[in-house]
């Protein structure tokens, strides 16, 4: 049985594809995304308060390495598929970073299937936002330099100036995704179970309803991107389906190496397979303006996200049950 929140996503997708006038106010979208990020953080933080933090070091190191490696692995493959250096780096960065809503959907699926998982998993999400973006920008720098040397063209100013690294790091670490996730984790960890009891009725209990509403909105947005697929051709569909499946195996492997629970392995697979559509597009737009933003977004939001929430997550959970059970 499909999780009920998926139906909301499909409804949004349907509304968009049939040209409905349904449109959620932007302020609501913003509110819902802030709520989800904080709520996910707080829930993970409550769990962190009951754990020795040092024990988490291997996990944190593992996810940093994984998300840093993803763009580096994808770059040569995308180049072989004839994407230029900027697009290859940008698509890689989108995959290296993560989708928080995909994470919320996999945890909802695990809870429903009564599969336990590491409750501090939001920490992995927060840590995985940045490394992939940094790797993507590094690849773009190297690729851009090579292509300019090769073509004999003078170095073109991208308008980013010399302080790109500083401003990129600032934008990622203090951008709303990481700020609210980490902020929520700290609030949850410091306040603990008792401290967060008064806000439980807002931040814990209605979570799934809010997630459903947010998925309705994401269905609308993804539907708009889906219409763009035609413009970019069959390759984006292949990338959007094959890459998540392949990366989920890497995530599964990391989960097994870290000796995580069945649910933890499924989450790790999902995080590896997910592609960012909030932090990555914004960061890449500024850091690698040469890349076609529409291409990366169409892949991450038009194909990878729907694929993961509808088909991918059940596959990743099934695989985790076979291998980690």
């Amino acid at each position, binding site marked *: 049985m499909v999780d009920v929140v998926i139906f909301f996503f499909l409804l949004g997708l349907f509304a968009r594809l049939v040209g409905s006038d349904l*449109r*959620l106010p*932007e302020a609501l*979208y913003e509110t819902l995304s802030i709520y989800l990020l904080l709520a996910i953080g707080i829930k993970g933080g409550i769990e962190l308060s009951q754990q020795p933090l040092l024990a988490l070091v291997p996990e944190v190191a593992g996810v940093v390495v994984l998300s840093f490696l993803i763009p580096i692995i994808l770059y040569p493959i995308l180049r072989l598929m004839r994407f230029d250096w900027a697009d290859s780096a940008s698509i890689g960065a989108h995959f290296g970073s993560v989708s928080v809503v995909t994470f919320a959907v996999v945890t909802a699926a695990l809870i429903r299937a009564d599969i336990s998982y590491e409750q501090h998993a939001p920490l992995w999400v927060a840590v995985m936002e940045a490394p992939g973006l940094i790797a993507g920008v590094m690849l773009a720098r190297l690729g851009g330099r090579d292509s300019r040397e090769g073509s004999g063209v003078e170095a073109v*100013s*991208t*308008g980013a100036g010399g302080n790109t690294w500083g401003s990129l790091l600032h934008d990622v670490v203090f951008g709303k995704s990481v700020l609210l996730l980490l902020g929520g984790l700290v609030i949850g960890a410091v306040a603990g179970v008792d401290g967060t009891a008064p806000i439980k009725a807002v931040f814990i209990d209605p979570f799934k309803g809010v997630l459903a509403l947010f998925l309705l*909105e994401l269905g*609308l*947005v993804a539907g*708009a991107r889906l219409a763009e697929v035609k413009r970019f051709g069959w390759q984006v569909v292949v990338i959007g389906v094959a890459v998540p499946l392949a990366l989920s195996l890497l995530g599964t492997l990391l989960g097994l190496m870290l000796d995580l629970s069945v649910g933890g392995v499924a989450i790790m697979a999902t995080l590896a397979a997910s592609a960012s*559509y*909030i932090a990555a*597009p*914004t960061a890449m*737009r*500024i850091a690698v*303006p*040469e890349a076609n*933003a*529409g291409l990366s*977004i169409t892949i991450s939001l038009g194909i990878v996200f729907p694929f993961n929430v509808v088909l991918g997550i059940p596959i990743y959970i099934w695989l985790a049950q076979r291998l980690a059970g």
Partner: protein
Amino acid sequence: MRLDKHARTLLVIIAESTLEKRLVQDVQRLGAQGYTVTDVRGGGHSGVREGAWEADRTIRMEVVCDEKVADEIGEYVLNQYAKHFGVTIFFTPVQVLRPNKF
């Protein structure tokens, strides 16, 4: 009574909202004394931008200033961003009441 009006230029820049922070710094550095930014949506050469989520937002920045400053800002924005970003720039003559503000 006739109001004492002074000629200035209204410079309008419509751009992807990821550029907002940098545009604000740019126009101030190049001599604008103030600016107004609104969220907008629309379509054109770079496709349709509905402003439904983070990477799909567009801003309209208005700056009232001397013609010379407006030209400098326009030229800078065109050279710096127009190659890779969706940017629209236009100028309109306007009249203001307090010239020292602009």
